């Protein structure tokens, strides 16, 4: 099937999409947007998190056809003119990145959190990021980064 969607403000059209493939597959394998990571393919790890019409979702659980005509924001779409967003800067500054595989998902989930709740409590941060697994950092530096990004007014 043919899919038309807007990713990070850019309209895309892609043909021969298999009806059962995921939005994540479309992003990575058809559009060459490798920021969203493919790990668990069952919504457990959050590393494929994107915003679909402004809503935080696991792109591995969205059927390609369900993204037809929709707006998608991936980690590549954060920040302006090649400059990192405040959340991305905070992750770098706090040392919240080790192997980096979970980082795009955590950054997108943090952007989503701070859009809805600019001054989250620690409990709210933990709940908001509960669907993003990191096996390196132990999360402490991630929490530091989110607090710092919130403090900067994002």
């Amino acid at each position, binding site marked *: *099937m043919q899919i038309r969607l807007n990713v990070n403000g850019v309209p895309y059209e892609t043909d021969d999409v*298999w*009806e*059962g493939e*995921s939005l994540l597959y479309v992003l990575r394998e058809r559009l060459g947007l490798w920021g969203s990571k493919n790990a668990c*393919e*069952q*919504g*457990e790890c*959050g590393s494929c*998190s994107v915003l679909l019409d402004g*809503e*935080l*979702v*696991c792109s*591995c*659980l*969205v*059927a390609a*056809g*369900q993204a*037809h005509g929709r707006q998608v924001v991936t980690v590549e779409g954060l920040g302006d003119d090649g400059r990192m967003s405040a959340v991305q800067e905070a992750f770098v500054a706090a040392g919240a990145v080790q192997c980096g595989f979970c980082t795009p998902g955590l950054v997108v*989930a943090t952007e*989503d959190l701070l859009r809805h709740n600019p001054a989250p409590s620690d409990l709210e941060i933990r*709940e*908001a990021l*509960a*669907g*993003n697994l990191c096996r390196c950092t132990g999360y402490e530096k991630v929490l530091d980064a989110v607090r710092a990004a919130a403090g900067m007014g994002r």
Partner: protein
Amino acid sequence: MDFHYPRSWADALALKAEHPEAVPIAGGTDVMVELNFNRRRPAALLDISAVPELAQWDRADGHLRVGAGVSYTRLVRELGPQLPGLAMAARTVGSPQIRNRGTVGGNLGSASPAGDAHPPLLAGRASVELASVRGTRLVPLDEFFTGPKRSVLAADELISAFVVRPAPGPEQFCKVGTRNAMVIAVASFAVSLDPERGRVGTGIGSAAPTPRRAGGAEEFLEAELAAAGMWQRPRPLPGPVLDRFAELVTASASPIDDVRGTAAYRRHALAVMARRALSWAWADLMRN
């Protein structure tokens, strides 16, 4: 594989009648996992996520009718005060990403014994609205499930909504798992109290081939509370009443050993949760 994407409820029903083999997909939190892991290759997908009628809820004749496509996130935000037990369960579903996409309709359609929405809906005596081009029928939830991942849903039917009374009193939900987020219940339990009618509702999850009510426990507690005049003058529940209630809840379960837990552990956990959930709900009642 075919991909059907109706934009209205009438079209969705017509497509389901024409293609009964088509698998309905809304949030995709179950269906996409099966596709991603090659566990299932349906001939067609029926994407009902853009059917506006399914995303609506309303209140009429003292009942809430909640469209099958309302997400857990919206349920918590928009219906939390009216359906507190279901909202508690909804908060334990997956993660924000999953709650944004997942729907109660999908939970019912998957008919997993571990579905988080099922115990509070059973406790609230909810019904499921099933629709096809042949018409619409309302099935009490305790007659909906027929086995693990099986229900009375016919091949040409879609789940349109669930219908339930707004909570008539305190409700509680408990769930045991390995962590708070992203967990399939090892066992779960819900209780709903209706002081006006003197009724008690219960729901057991992950401890039988289907979600089910604990009818013996409901009848026992209703009789005890009525005999002691406790609905009119709530006093702390005597220990032996709590113990017997927990025992009867456990007796209604028929759990198995599996990767998530043993049958013995599930029985033990159910007894603890039944006692706790009832104590909390009763404390809420005494406060008001």
